[in-house]
């Protein structure tokens, strides 16, 4: 039955080559912790992706209750924290997950660096990885404002002032970020849009590139 369904789809869409690329390939022994325990360092990248997945899921659920305007944002977060079933857990996942992504990604980067995996022919994948790092930092910066509490507000106020102090471009960057000259209603709407639309789009594209390149170049061989 399953086989029949697969064949029916395969006949029309020719998914077998795709399946072969995604799933049907060998994993070398030197990255397999089941073969050699110390290979666990090769898990950091996968774990980063796992945390990113939980971030996307918890973020989607938070977006069901969150209201991105300055009168209601704080109350909606308070409602999520105090009233919504498991709201505090989902918010906790998103809050702590943000830090965990950074930590796991940093460890992954150190692994790639110290095993020299960025060397030719994999330079481009290193660059994409660094770009993912920057995108994740941007996630952190924009997400920090959304609860609209004191520390969120003042951290963003100072952050945008720092951006504004950059010679020549500063004022433009500041206006682009804040939508005005101070942190306010426009800023929150903007940060929300960046956090839930712009950055996820950029992140998904970069992740896709990251994974496609791993598949076409394979994991770097043993040291």
């Amino acid at each position: 039955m399953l086989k029949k369904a697969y064949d029916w789809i395969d006949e029309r869409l020719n998914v077998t080559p795709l399946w072969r690329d995604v799933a049907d390939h060998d994993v070398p022994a030197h990255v397999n912790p089941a073969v050699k325990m110390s290979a666990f360092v090769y898990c950091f990248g996968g774990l980063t992706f796992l945390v990113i997945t939980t971030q996307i899921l918890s973020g989607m659920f938070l977006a069901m209750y969150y209201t991105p305007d300055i009168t209601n944002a704080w109350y909606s977060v308070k409602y999520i924290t105090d009233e919504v079933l498991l709201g505090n857990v989902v918010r906790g996942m998103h809050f702590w997950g943000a830090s965990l992504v950074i930590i796991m990604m940093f460890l992954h980067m150190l692994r790639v660096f110290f095993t020299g995996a960025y060397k030719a022919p994999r330079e481009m994948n290193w660059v994409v990885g660094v770009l993912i790092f920057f995108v994740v930092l941007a996630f952190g910066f924009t997400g920090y404002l959304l609860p609209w509490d004191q520390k969120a507000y003042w951290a963003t106020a100072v952050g945008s002032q720092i951006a504004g102090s950059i010679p020549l471009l500063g004022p433009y960057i500041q206006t682009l970020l804040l939508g005005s000259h101070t942190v306010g209603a426009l800023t929150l709407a903007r940060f929300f849009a960046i956090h839930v639309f712009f950055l996820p789009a950029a992140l998904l594209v970069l992740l896709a590139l990251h994974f496609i390149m791993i598949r076409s170049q394979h994991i770097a061989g043993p040291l």
Partner: protein
Amino acid sequence: MSGGERIPGTPRYRHHLLKNPGTEPFFPNFLLKEWIAGAVFLTGFMLWVVFNPVVLGDKANPDDTSFIPVPDWYFLFLYQILKYYPGSDIVFGTVLVPMIGALLLIFTPWLDTSKERHPYKRPLATLSMVLMTFLTIWLTNEAAVQHKAEVAAASGQASSGLPQVPKKAPSQITLVDTNMPGYTLFEQTCATCHGKKGEGGFGPPIYAISKYWNATQLKHFVENPQGGMPKNGTLTSDAQVQQVVDWLEKQTG
């Protein structure tokens, strides 16, 4: 495509017969093991989340300029760099140093072009990365320590964990139930540090402390004080502590 690819037509579960021993198919063999690692990791993560609930701070108040801002911890190293370039040198901290760092990171593959991959065989690259990692961690820690000290200094003295009651002139403070025995004790002992009206002095202001804390929390703090307050606030008996707490409980500002 070089190496690592499965030979087409090789039965999936006889990978040990392949020339390259130890390799196994990504799906389902490796993915299942990977998932076990992932499950353990997620369990640890969820336990952390459940036992460390996130606290929502007070609603943003653009008029309250006394709030000491600090970025999230993963920006602290950048924040700390700013402090080393005060005044007109700020451009070093805002643009140049972070830019150089970012460019070095992006162009790593073209800076370290030797064929050697083992970290010991390219000591310069390895040493630079170790140094950068330690520098980043040190800067992060330095910023955190300095921020903590700043917050403590702003609240008058070493951080005590006591809620911050806003400072107010004694003439504007109205204490209630001053006929209670607790008030007499307060005047004789606590007022030495906290002021006759609880407006604060050597100790922090506490005239409206019960707006923030209930009697149990107050009693616990007086019995186990922090931030330089003497135990039981120099009161001599449990009964006295209880009387003072009973009175403090009425002070909601």
